[in-house]
């Protein structure tokens, strides 16, 4: 009988082992990158029917978040403003700007403006805006520096791990209540930690890691 297999066949186990390691690493890295919310969500920046700039309105004009998102401190939802809110100013300012046409049309016709949703928790997650903003968590913590965005994009992953990070250690994200809507407010990290801990203690912030906090 002759040798059935060529000599290089003996190196097969080593080659297979190395190949497996390599492809395993590739798959893991790929899954990590493409299948995690960091990739699938962060940076999502759809084209909106109206190129509304938060930078202009918040950073330059100094509008308070609650001017438009008026329910954010009262309700589960931070509402999207109706065109009538826009028209409060834009009936005078840029009254005939082409970019604002959808707003004016909606205001007249009653057809809603089809904004593209960017931040969305899954159906089985119950997130309450009001309790966060009223207890010292700023919009920035979850939405990023909205005030600097010309067009809004998804800034934070908003995964369960993301929520848990803050719920396990809320101190870095607690602010004085008057600074919650001040998106430019910053604090020295060391001071922030001390202050956050004090707030957490004084206000009995017992951010829960229990399932019923979000799922029911």
């Amino acid at each position: 009988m002759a040798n059935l297999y060529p000599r290089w066949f003996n190196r097969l186990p080593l080659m297979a082992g190395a190949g497996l390691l390599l492809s395993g690493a590739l798959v893991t890295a790929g899954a990590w990158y493409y299948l995690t919310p960091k990739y699938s969500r962060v940076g999502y920046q759809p084209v909106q029917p109206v190129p509304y700039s938060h930078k202009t309105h918040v950073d330059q004009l100094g509008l308070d978040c609650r001017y438009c998102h008026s329910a954010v401190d009262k309700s589960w939802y931070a509402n999207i403003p109706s065109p009538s809110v826009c028209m409060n100013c834009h009936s005078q300012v840029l009254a005939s700007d082409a970019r604002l046409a959808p707003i004016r049309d909606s205001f007249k016709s009653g057809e809603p403006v089809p904004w593209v949703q960017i931040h969305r928790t899954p159906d089985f997650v119950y997130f309450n805006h009001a309790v966060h903003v009223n207890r010292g968590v700023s919009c920035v913590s979850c939405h990023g520096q909205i005030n600097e965005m010309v067009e809004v994009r998804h800034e934070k992953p908003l995964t369960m791990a993301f929520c848990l990070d803050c719920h396990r250690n809320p101190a870095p994200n607690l602010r004085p209540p008057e600074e919650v809507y001040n998106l430019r407010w910053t604090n020295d990290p060391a001071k922030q930690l001390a202050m956050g801990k004090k707030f957490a203690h004084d206000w009995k912030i017992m951010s829960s890691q229990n399932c019923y906090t979000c799922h029911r």
Partner: protein
Amino acid sequence: MTSPAAGLLSRIPDPPPELERKPLVENLRGFGWISDRIAGVAEGKTPTWWWVAFFPSVLLMLMCFTMVGYLVSTGVGVWGVNHPVGWGWAIINFVFWIGIGHAGTLISAILFLLRQRWRTAVNRAAEAMTIFAVMCAGIFPAIHVGRAWFAWWLFPIPNSNNIWPQFRSPLMWDVFAVSTYFTVSLLFWYMGLIPDLATMRDRSAGKIKKWIYGFFALGWMGSNRHWSNYEKAYLLLAGLSTPLVLSVHSIVSFDFSVSQLPGWHTTIFPPYFVAGAIFSGFGMVLTLLIPVRTLCHLEEVITVRHIELMGKVILATGSIVGYAYATEFFIAYYSGNPYELFTFKNRAFGPYWWAYWIMVSCNVICPQLFWFKKVRTNLVIVFILSIFVNIGMWFERFVIVVTSLHRDFLPSNWGYYSPTIVDILTFVGTFGLFLTLFLLFLRFVPLIAIAEVKSVIPQGDPDHPLAKQKETAAPSAALASGEPGPVSNGKPFGLLAEFETSADIKQAAIKVRVAGHKTWDVFTPFPIHGMDDAMGLRDSRVGWFTFCGGVLGFTTGMLMIWFMNAFDYPLAVGGKPLFSPVFAFPVSYELTILFGAFGSLLGMFIVNRLPRWHHPIFNSTRFPRVTHDRFFILIECRDGKYDEARTRQLLETAGGKNIELVKE
């Protein structure tokens, strides 16, 4: 049939009567005969009975898959489960099949450790049965969950939800136990198969067949240095499988005994389940092997004595099971717990009385017939009783699962459970899957461990008077012709000498060692007792790999569970501690065994430098008979004392034939 050894036998003094045992292979068959007969089952033309069995099996298997598809697409409601009976046939079938699986490991591992040499005739088939039974069993936990597509949540895979499995649940223990059991059984089975796959390789006439068998044989050449590590690894695997087999059904029983239901919450379950599992497993082995031995003409290898011995095991385990039933009643009465007592009364006299009494008659009463040798040796009766055992053990699981659930603490919850047609067809379908796999196994893989059987016949023992008896059966064409390979013009590799009996080779090996050779090896169809000493080999180092694997497994288990349940996301569960070595133990135990088994196999491969498909020795045209009936010694050229002429002379004096110079 007149035996060629008949003349020889007369010269051997009779053993004292108390030691007289029937030989494990009847009629004093030789090595070649064993290879031919066993390998012949997988080689010959496919017999008609095989097709007759195979087609219905495949149809049943397809029906099983259809039912699973219907279940997953529609909902668990297509089964008969309800409130309060949340587990029905699915779990019953799971436990049933897992139980069946236990015989395989028991035969291969525990009987191996107990040096029960009769196991060699049945262990291969029993192990295959184990693997297929565990596959059938594994289907049920996967599909019985309401959302089967999320069943992967039972595995500890990191995810962006930061949530982990919950290791206090016996179902998690089950996941680890069953998957470890499946993996280790598969490794054990495959490892046992390697020498036989080499036999199949060497016997195959077709190129493709040869290539495929050869690929899976991993370049096995019967080297005694390999055998030495191989046997060590096999022993270690057997050692690991023994606690494994005991733990698996113990853990399966924890599914019940760890919960609170009267009738489930009892400490007797682990031993009682293990005994029951062995009982049912042997039942299934008999059910399969009694027809197979006839259909495949293996009566001389799987002898009536084998059947009888298995009958005794059934009698013993059946009696243990019966004792457990009695104990349960006694404890229920003695505990003074009215809930407990009610459950047992309800089993025997409640709405499911029929299931209970079927169980008792099949499991306790029927096996008592095995007290009689006449029964144990009557294959028809044994076959029928083995089927009763299977039925009885299925009903045992039915009784445990259903009667405990259907009437528990609050009478307002009480209900009744009946299976639906989907339940029934799914279960019947798993028999299709099981038989399909088993029939494929029969057709493609030697169903008896050829090398092991060779080692237990008298000729296999070099110190046995019969060891000098020569094989007279002519080898098959493929082996006899020994196709000449391409003209080898490579470097000389070594001198190869051929020997005909195990006694010869042992003597020769001693001579070669005494001559001071270092780089040489002996090649045999089976591991020869005493050869390591003859060659002067050191003890195998495989054990260290096993040890490291085991330690790694245990540590991994404990650390993983502590990290997941007590550190990363501590949750209060059932008022139990966040971490306790007690609830972490079953999983760590399984991981110890799993990693230990990986270590053993890996160690064996590393130490043996396997797989090694290409080897100069395969250039010899006579060498393939090493997996059949011949023994070889190779003294390599790079050995310090090698000198072609002197070495050739040494081999000739040692009795070597057909001495040839093997080239690379």
